[in-house]
């Protein structure tokens, strides 16, 4: 009876569900047979599927016992049979069970049948007649996770007899000769040959080509081979080899079409991410981030300047403020998928105009529990520091400037020349950003599991100091977990993942006394920092930055992400899914100006000043889904339908206090006087339905259609809903017979294309509503409110139409893979602050403008496995992008607030500047092109009727960019070398905002040695205009001229990673699984002609603290 119990379970469940009657009869038959035989006790433990066995002339019974112990498979046979068995001699190493069985039973007078985990041994039928019997085969094909594979081809070897598995992986073949061999093939999997039998369960192993690696897409997975869309993946190994704090930094240069720039070298700094260029004039250009199914904010939550101000050096940058993604531990990430074209993104509808970035965290894996320990230590410095003038040069420049302006300096107007010491030479730059940042990382991961439950638990800690002076740090720590449960019958899967990370970011010199990087480095090198008594010295008109750097900004961020995912197979081919996710991210800020940071005048006026702020955003998302899979003719149909309910709330408060009398009290609100306070509370809700239909005909033709209908609270009544969709198709021509016949060297060939629309709702909330808010003051004692905006109930999403064509090729068994892509995205219906005549009550409101922005370009990617010998491997990954951004039309540009920024036909990043034609050798004045011939140089746009002389001088986005990664492996050694190249123009040190120092009527206006090449006496040729102490129109024209715009291309050794893994022999002696020692470098070498700080930050006319070059030494051990 014991056996029967097990046998009942052993019968594949899918059979029961298809035809319960049939199963009953089968079960009865089995019962009868089984009553006459005995059994081996089956234990429920899950064991390996592979068999390692080395025996010589062993009895079958012993071998069976071994297999049972190793795999948990049980055997059914009559004891009497064994008498007839022949002794067995085999040598198997990690052989799959099917293979092992076929070897073991080869020549034995038995045949066997595998049914789930039971192997039934029966005597070989003696042929009744010499004609071989024809078999009626019922079989099923599954993958390594026991998931049915639909669409697999089952072919009788050497014949034309073939069939395809259905949605449940089942197939039937009739009239198959008994001794025939079946060839089972499925794209992306390795082919398998198996002897024909009445009942077959075939497990296919996944192919090891990059084309067949699992690729996460919106609400599903695919592989590059079968994908109709444009999806790039960056896997954990690439992230792990880079010593970065923010995982987005690890994407720099790795993905074609993805431009990643970090705003500064300080921890927590924002990272600008753009997929295929700027689509929107005014709305967000950030991609949509989804972490384990939960949307994640891309905009910083800080309510008050602070950490972010130091980070970005100046407010008002494109992607200013810190990056919330910083709070995600790069080590927790399994893969990052970048979705680019309409086919891949349209399933995300109204939020997908700027592409989608899917982040998937690590999951537990089946097998023995493994404990991973990872410890690393590193240091970093800023990449580049252009040299500033020393005191002697600085004073000479001041004297020349005063002489040129005819000004006689006095102790009052130029204390540098009179009262400051000419012998002091303080390097402000070195003091402020010349430090070394030290990092320590530690991580611990435990993961494992069996057929039913897998788990992963990890903890991480990261501690980083900064290059800034003073007490600064960035500390992050957290936990990450994942549990997955599969029911025995494989119908139910429940997965839950969560992570919590907290960080503590403290930077010096922020708060309201913002010592901006650009001001600090230009401070007079002989400014007397201390007075005779050793106290901070405050000279009127100057900033004492050493004192002011005792101001600090601190922020604490908590980020909790959790999601539960439930999948249930309701019927064969139909699955129900539900995903429930939450994300809660909260920032607490404390910015303080201690008395030590304030001048005596300000100490008296305000006392110590502190800002306390907090802001919390919580997102809840619920996504029910249903999928349906069916084989129709020679193809497979996959249908997905689902819905989204999302609720997103942001609440925050800010309190600004003054009057602190001691620096010891700054941490409490109790000791200050409230000077101002504010709060915000925003709700953003989202509702949608989506569907996707994919039909794959014989792995040759694939068509994919997506539809999504979205409703969002960011739009007015009747405008909340919009419909987006796409069509994509792929033709795998390498699977055509003609290709197989004539182009056997072509292992993979695919043409794909897609077209569709996505939307952009990246505008503020409630813009469509007419609202009342608080007035600056109350009306006497009466609380008063006034309209804050004029509502526009009519505006709609920005619509982005994406078109893409691509060819993907694989040669020499996919050792060379190539992808070439052409895309064109057009964004219309632009949401802008539309200019209104003020007679309406307001001067602008949010409205759609029929302006059209186009991004088009070419992207290339190539992966080659150059050498693949046993001991030595060399592979290369290469990518290259040629983007082009163009403003196609903008009705009313000339009268809009954008008239001085944009030019039709040019990029949105166009740089307008006066054209500098040289310096007059006689006078030392700059000469400029008078574009409109009015005799004066006016620094406004020469286009759009602005009447100025500023013409197109370039653009601040790349002409092309790319990266190349070479990986060398020799035994336990691995070397990764990654170079990044960007061809671009940008603002250099001669530009206005950087170089306003030419007017020496401002205190603290040092410049860089490059600026010393100025006109000194009549006859000087090829020099910069003469410096002046009082600014003139000529001088301004120079500062706004194209002299400040130049080449900012760079080639950078982005990543260098060397690792050594201990060989197995030593490992087994140490009794550990693996041990790896590694040395990693980031931004080690930069080759550029750029005149300025780091060329990565050249797109804005401001100075930014350069990114860091980092070196890290680490050890990774798996127990």
């Amino acid at each position, binding site marked *: 009876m014991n056996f029967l119990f097990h046998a009942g379970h052993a019968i594949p469940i899918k059979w029961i*569900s*298809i035809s319960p009657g049939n199963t009953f009869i089968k079960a009865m038959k089995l019962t009868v047979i089984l009553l006459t035989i005995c059994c081996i006790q089956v234990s429920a433990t899950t064991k390996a599927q592979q068999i390692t066995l080395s025996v010589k002339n062993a009895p079958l019974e012993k071998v069976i016992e071994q297999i049972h112990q190793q795999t948990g498979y049980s055997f059914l046979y009559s004891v009497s049979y064994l008498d007839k068995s022949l002794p067995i001699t085999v040598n198997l190493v990690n052989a799959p069970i099917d293979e092992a069985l076929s070897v073991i039973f080869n020549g034995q007078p038995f045949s066997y049948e595998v049914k789930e985990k039971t192997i039934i041994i029966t005597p070989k039928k003696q042929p009744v007649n010499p004609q071989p019997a024809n078999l009626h085969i019922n079989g099923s094909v599954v993958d390594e996770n026991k998931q049915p594979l639909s669409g697999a081809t089952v072919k009788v070897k050497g014949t034309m007899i073939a069939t395809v598995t259905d949605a449940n992986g089942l197939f039937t073949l009739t009239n198959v000769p008994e001794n025939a061999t079946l060839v089972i093939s499925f794209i992306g999997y390795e082919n398998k040959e198996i002897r024909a039998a009445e009942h077959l369960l075939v497990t296919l192993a996944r192919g090891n080509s990059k084309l067949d690696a699992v690729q996460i897409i919106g609400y599903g997975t695919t592989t590059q081979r079968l994908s109709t869309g444009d999806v790039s993946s960056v896997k954990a190994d690439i992230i792990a080899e880079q010593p970065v704090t923010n995982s987005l930094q690890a994407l720099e240069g790795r993905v074609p079409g993805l431009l990643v720039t970090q705003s500064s070298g300080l921890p927590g700094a924002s990272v600008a991410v753009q997929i295929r260029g700027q689509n929107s004039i005014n709305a967000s250009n950030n991609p949509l981030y989804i972490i384990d199914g939960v949307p994640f904010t891309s905009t910083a939550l800080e309510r008050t300047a602070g950490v972010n101000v130091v980070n970005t050096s100046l407010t008002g940058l494109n992607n200013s403020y810190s990056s919330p993604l910083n709070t995600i531990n790069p080590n927790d990430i399994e893969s990052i998928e970048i979705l680019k074209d309409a086919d891949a993104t349209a399933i995300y509808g109204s939020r997908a105009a700027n592409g989608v970035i899917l982040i998937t965290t690590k999951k537990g894996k089946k097998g023995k529990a493994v404990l991973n320990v990872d410890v690393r230590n590193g240091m970093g410095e800023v990449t580049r520091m252009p040299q500033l003038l020393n005191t002697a040069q600085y004073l000479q420049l001041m004297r020349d400037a005063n002489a040129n302006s005819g000004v006689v300096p006095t102790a009052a107007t130029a204390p540098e020349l009179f009262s400051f010491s000419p012998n002091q030479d303080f390097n402000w730059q070195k003091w402020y950003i010349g430090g070394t940042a030290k990092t320590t990382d530690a991580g611990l991961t435990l993961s494992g599991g069996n057929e039913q439950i897998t788990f992963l638990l990890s903890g991480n800690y990261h501690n980083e100091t900064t290059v800034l002076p003073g007490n600064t740090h960035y500390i992050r720590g957290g936990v990450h977990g994942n549990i997955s449960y599969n029911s025995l019958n494989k119908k139910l899967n429940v997965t839950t993942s969560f992570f919590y990370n907290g960080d503590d970011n403290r930077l010096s010199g922020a708060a309201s006394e913002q010592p901006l990087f650009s001001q600090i480095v230009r401070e007079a090198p002989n400014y007397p920092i201390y007075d005779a008594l050793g106290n901070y010295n405050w000279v009127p008109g100057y900033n004492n930055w050493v004192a002011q750097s005792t101001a600090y900004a601190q922020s604490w961020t908590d980020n909790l992400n959790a999601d539960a995912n439930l999948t249930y197979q309701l*019927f*064969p*081919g*139909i699955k*129900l899914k539900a995903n429930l996710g939450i994300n809660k991210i909260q920032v607490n800020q404390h910015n303080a100006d201690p008395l030590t940071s304030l001048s005596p005048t300000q100490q008296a006026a305000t006392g110590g000043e502190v800002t306390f702020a907090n802001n919390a955003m919580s997102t809840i998302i619920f996504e*029910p889904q*249903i999928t*349906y899979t*069916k084989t129709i003719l020679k193809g497979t149909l996959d249908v997905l*339908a689902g*819905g989204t*309910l999302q609720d997103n709330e942001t609440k925050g408060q800010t309190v600004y206090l003054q009057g602190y009398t001691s620096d010891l009290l700054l941490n409490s609100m109790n000791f200050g006087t409230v000077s101002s306070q504010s*709060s*915000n*509370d*925003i*709700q953003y*809700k989202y*509702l*949608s*339905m989506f569907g996707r239909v994919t039909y794959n005909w014989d792995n040759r033709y694939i068509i994919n259609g997506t539809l999504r209908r979205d*409703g*969002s*609270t960011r739009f007015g*009544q009747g405008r*909340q809903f919009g419909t987006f969709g796409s069509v994509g198709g792929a033709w795998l021509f390498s699977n055509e017979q003609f290709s197989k016949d004539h182009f056997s060297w072509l292992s993979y060939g695919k043409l794909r294309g897609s077209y569709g629309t996505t939307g952009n709702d990246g505008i503020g909330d*409630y813009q469509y*509503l*007419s*609202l*009342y*808010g608080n*007035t*600056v*003051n*109350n*009306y*006497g*004692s*009466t*609380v*008063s*409110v*006034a*309209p*804050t905006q*004029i509502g526009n109930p009519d505006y709609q999403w920005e619509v982005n139409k994406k078109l893409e064509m691509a060819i993907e090729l694989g040669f020499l068994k996919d050792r060379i893979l190539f992808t070439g892509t052409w895309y064109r995205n057009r964004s219309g219906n632009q949401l802008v602050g539309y*200019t*209104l*005549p*003020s*007679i*309406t*009550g*307001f*001067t602008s*409101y949010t409205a759609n403008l029929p302006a059209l922005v186009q991004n088009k370009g070419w992207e290339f990617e190539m992966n080659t496995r150059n050498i693949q010998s046993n001991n030595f491997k060399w592979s290369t990954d290469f990518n290259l992008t040629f983007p082009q951004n163009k403003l196609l039309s903008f009705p009313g540009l000339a*009268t809009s607030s954008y008239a001085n920024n944009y030019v039709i036909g040019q990029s949105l990043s166009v740089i307008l500047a006066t054209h500098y034609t040289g310096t007059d050798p006689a006078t030392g004045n700059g000469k400029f092109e008078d574009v409109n011939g009015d005799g004066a140089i006016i620094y406004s746009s020469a286009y759009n009727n602005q009447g100025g002389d500023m013409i197109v001088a370039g653009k601040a986005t790349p002409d092309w960019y790319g990266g190349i990664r070479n990986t060398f492996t020799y035994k336990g050694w691995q070397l990764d070398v990654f170079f990044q190249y960007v061809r671009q123009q940008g603002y250099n040190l001669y530009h206005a905002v950087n170089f306003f120092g030419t007017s020496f009527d401002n205190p603290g206006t040092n410049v860089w040695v490059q600026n010393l090449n100025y006109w000194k006496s009549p006859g000087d040729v090829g020099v910069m205009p003469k410096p002046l102490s009082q600014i003139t129109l000529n001088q301004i024209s120079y500062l706004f001229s194209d002299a400040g715009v130049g080449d900012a291309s760079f080639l950078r050794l982005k990543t260098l990673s060397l690792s050594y893994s201990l060989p197995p022999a030593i490992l087994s002696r140490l009794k550990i699984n693996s041990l790896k020692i590694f040395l990693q470098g980031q931004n080690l070498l930069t080759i550029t002609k750029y005149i300025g700080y780091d060329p990565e930050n050249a797109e804005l006319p401001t100075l930014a603290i350069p990114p860091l070059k980092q070196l890290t030494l680490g050890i990774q051990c798996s127990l």
Partner: protein
Amino acid sequence: MKTHHLYKIFLTTLITLASAITGCKKFVTVNELSDNLLASQVFNNESTANSAIAGIYETMQLNTQQSSDITILTGLSGDELKTYDGAFNINYSNDAILSNDGALPWSELYNVIYQCNAAIEGLNQSILPAPVKNQLLGEATFLRAYNYFYLVNLFGDVPLITSTNVNVTARAARTPVANVYQSIIQDLLRAQDLLGTTNNYANGEKTRATKWVATALLSRVYLYQKDWVNASKYSGDIIASNTFTLDPNLSDVFNKNSSESILQLENNPTLVIAEAQDFIYQTSPIIVCTDSLINSFENGDQRKTQWIQSMVYSGATVYYPFKYTSINPNPPQYYTLFRLAEQYLIRAEAYAQQNMLPAAIADLNLIRQRAGLNPLASSLSQAGCLAAIQHERRVELFAEVGHRWFDLKRTGTIDTVMNTEKPGIWKPNAALWPIPLADIHADVNLTQNPGY
């Protein structure tokens, strides 16, 4: 199980899902905000509705603190004030205002009108009880008229905006002055009606409109319209109501809730009166009184000593308005928009125009006597009486939200006066300021005043 069953199951689930989700359409509707108020809800709650009306006064108060302050700009354009440092708003002093001048009080006035229109629209739909609704509606209607009064007198024909609907207002053209006045009178009569039951100021603060406030503007508008009968009637009503009395003490006239004031703007205790800051100098003078203003005071006129202050700067004596005496927070005064003295002067002028000279002179003498001057003889001719009234208006109402500039224009004396005041500089077209260029660009139907 057969395929078509699966289809059915799939479709049924799909339809259930679809209807469940589309059934939640309300999910994406915002019903309430906590940091802001929905315009559609503000006027259905007595407290927030009151706050919204208070917000209109507060915005007007805020506008007096901006560069667009009407007292200073009209004073500079006219013959009351001049820039001392030769730079501050010199284009106004030179009557050469550029159409892109940032100080032009245009968008500020239209913003207040938007608030009034929003309030009127909101209150007309409101569920509030009639007494509350009428009071607030009356105030909003009055405030709209008040701001149009300034627009029409500063710029001439102006777009008459009575709606908040952008689709209606963004392409509006200019409305003739007469029609704008018609609308102003209509609003004021309605405001009188709506405010009819409330003669008393709430909490003793004269900082919200009442029936008498509406009446005070009405008499001024009729005066400007040369409707002498109505001008004397309405100013007479105010005087006869005995609600207000002339303050015997000149230094008390602008005090908070003085017996003479009809409408003042309440000052937040933490704030100063910005106009005081513009005039009262801490270091060097910026805006000072013109010589002609100083010289126009008769000997012994107490107003010259009480309401004007002088200081010696760089060896020269400069004079500046001193109606508001403090540059510190919580000053003793409120910014005054309407006061009884003006009503006496309106009635005097209306009587004089109707040739009711003794009554006119009697009113005029009340003002003169308070300033410490001798009464005028009752034997004055009509022309002499009118001239005396204009003179009296100049010295009584100087530096008070544009009275002098408007008087010059409505009496047709502007060219004569200004040619004497600014010989070679004055151009007749300068009587109307330019329409801001940004609005001309943004609204194709908007035309510019001549000369800009």
